[in-house]
């Protein structure tokens, strides 16, 4: 066996030297577990499909680890060709003049066939200029949805096929679930992404000025409106009798839902596969609720996740390889494969149609709810996405203040004002630096 391995190794080496070695393209990403395996599988497929380029995926840790590794590598002039950056890092990457090569430019320079219209607009708009030029290739995209426990609905005498559609209905259902003997009615992850950013987009309300930052760095947060105040006020009031249970920042509230302590929960569609594994009950996925008295609601929800950025200063051949890899990633087959294996959304309409025709949604209705929610209406300037510098700090300020609100240290109104005030200061810092 050993001898055979050595022999084959020698053979490979001879073969390698006999033919021109393929150009290596480094691809740094932050996907673990099943998602990481799927990234590897897609790269293998690409490498097998042609012999000019070899994409090498490297796992670099969490999203922030990966971004920091990319920053450090760029400063040391050894950046990879492709790096996966989470959505909150978008403005930072955009502002990094000279560090990145926008995807639309890359495609033009390498003369790669590229039709921006094949992509789902709500997904690509997040990573495009306001003129519609694609800056980075959307990779893993998700959006927030409502999960509900069908068994708990039955127990509380509610129709499990009729999840609440509006927020007033939602709160009534939450109270009924609690009254039916559950620990609490509902919980939510990602207070900023789901209950502020998506909430604003879904109601076609501005989260910030200047098209949520798409039109300029002089954007300002404006979400301290009576509507948002009413929404958070209601949740706060419901937290007092534990109809709402706080489960922590980011996605830390998930165990509340999967252990059956609450009957309804807000989480990314990216968590669908996870809930399928952990929930020992029948659950459903529904659209985000809305306030019916708001004109234009529901609009469309916005995405989260990450996109692929291309670093500047690579050779022409490398860019050709990156461009053909990106085209490969955008084919319906690969997108459908990615979508069905990871639960992230497909980035092209063709991949969605393909998945539908394969009958995937009959067994997995959840992801389709998310796609339909994204496609609900053509995105407006309030629902294209969010483009803020220092976005991570802004979200952190929101998280911290939300905890202070729930702990009763600050009123909802004062809390919202503080989020906006301190967040705006961070936006000004970013503007000053990137003028």
């Amino acid at each position: 066996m050993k001898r055979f391995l050595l022999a084959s190794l020698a053979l490979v080496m001879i073969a390698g030297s006999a033919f021109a070695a393929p150009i290596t393209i480094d691809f740094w990403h932050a996907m673990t577990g099943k998602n990481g395996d799927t990234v590897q599988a897609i790269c293998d497929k690409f490498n097998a499909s042609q012999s000019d380029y070899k994409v090498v995926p490297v796992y670099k840790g969490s999203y922030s680890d990966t971004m920091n590794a990319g920053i450090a590598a760029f400063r040391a002039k050894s950046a990879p060709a492709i790096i996966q950056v989470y959505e909150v890092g978008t403005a930072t990457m955009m502002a990094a003049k000279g560090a990145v090569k926008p995807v639309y430019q890359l495609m033009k320079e390498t003369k790669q066939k590229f039709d921006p219209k094949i992509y789902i607009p709500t997904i690509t708009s997040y990573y495009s200029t306001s003129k519609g030029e694609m800056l980075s290739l959307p990779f893993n995209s998700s959006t927030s949805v409502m999960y509900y426990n069908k068994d708990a609905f039955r127990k509380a005498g509610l129709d499990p096929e009729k999840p609440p559609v509006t927020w007033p209905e939602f709160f009534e259902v939450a109270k009924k679930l609690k009254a039916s003997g559950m620990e609490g009615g509902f919980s939510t992850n990602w207070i900023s992404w789901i209950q502020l950013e998506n909430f604003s987009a879904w109601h076609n309300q501005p989260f910030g000025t200047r098209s949520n930052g798409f039109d300029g760095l002089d954007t300002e947060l404006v979400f301290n409106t009576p509507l948002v105040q009413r929404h958070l006020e209601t949740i706060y009031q419901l937290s007092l009798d534990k109809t709402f249970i706080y489960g922590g920042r980011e996605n830390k509230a998930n165990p509340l839902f999967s252990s059956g302590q609450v009957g309804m929960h807000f989480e990314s569609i990216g968590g669908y596969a996870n809930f399928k594994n952990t929930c020992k009950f029948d659950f459903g996925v529904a659209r985000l609720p809305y306030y019916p008295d708001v004109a234009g609601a529901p609009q469309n929800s916005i995405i989260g996740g990450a996109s692929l950025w291309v670093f500047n200063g690579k050779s022409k051949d490398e860019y050709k390889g990156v461009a053909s890899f990106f085209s490969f990633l955008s084919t319906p087959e690969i997108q459908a494969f990615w979508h069905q294996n990871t639960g992230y959304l497909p980035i092209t309409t063709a991949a969605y149609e393909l998945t539908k025709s394969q009958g995937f949604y009959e067994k997995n209705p959840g992801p389709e709810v998310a796609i339909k929610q994204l496609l609900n209406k053509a995105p407006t300037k309030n629902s294209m996405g969010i483009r803020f510098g220092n976005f991570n700090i802004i979200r952190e300020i929101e998280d911290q203040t939300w905890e202070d609100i729930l702990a009763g240290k600050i009123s909802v109104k004062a809390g919202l004002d503080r989020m906006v005030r301190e967040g705006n200061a961070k936006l000004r810092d970013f503007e000053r630096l990137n003028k």
Partner: protein
Amino acid sequence: MVQQYEFKAKWLPYLLVLPQMVIVFVFFFWPSLQGLWQSFFLQDPFGGQVIFVGLENYVRLFTDPAYSYGESFAVSVAFAVCVAGLSMILALFLATQTNKKIRFASFYKTMMIWPYAVATMVAGVLWLFMFNPNVGVVAWFLKNRFGIEWQHLLNSGQAFLLVTLAASWKQISYNFVFFLAGLQSVPVDFIEAAAIDGAGPMRRFWKIIFPLLSPTTFYLLVMNLVYGFFETFPIIHQVTAGGPGKSTSILVYKVWRDGVINLDLGGSSAQSVILMIMVIGLTVVQFRFIERRVHY
């Protein structure tokens, strides 16, 4: 008579310490100087835009309420003092108990040292599991037996208590070893003489053993404060992530968050310079008093 060796070649000693100095320079001085340098600038993470701002990063730390540096400083001091106090008192109690002539004394001693082998990060996870408000064993017990609602995600007092307990638990073993060694070096004659003179156990402890332990105690106090200030990062990161609000965001945690996660390099560098000054201060104190230990 102390033997003195002298090198013939004058350059040889320098050559011999050179590798060490290179390491110290590359891994300690160079980054420190860079940190100092960066603290005077605002810059984007990729280094494309750099603006010299003088002391603005420092001024903002102390004047901008959004930074809440003062709050973070106060929490850090309270945390370090509580951890040092709690872990030292418990360790001293345990050390005096195991130092008695009891059965299985060496077994107890071994057991007592074990937690020190647990990585700080893992210690954090263990405590988090027990106190998880939704699925934790202790949280469940507190709720159902004592009617105490455990919710450290929102209750800042509970969050502080939890990180203090987790950090102290880990440190007890370390203190225990030192206290035990200290206790064993207290001459038995003194204690016997005191006993013959009619001093009770409490009196013997406070009048003889405790004063003789003072060098150990002092050394441990410094070490524990250093631990509380600078080495508890994994516990905060794991258990509370600085929350709820900013109530457990100690200095070392804040410097990491602002720099690594939030990419505020200038502000984070300014914070690290302040931390550096604190470490230097503590080191000076430590050396001063460890020197004095010889003369007690």
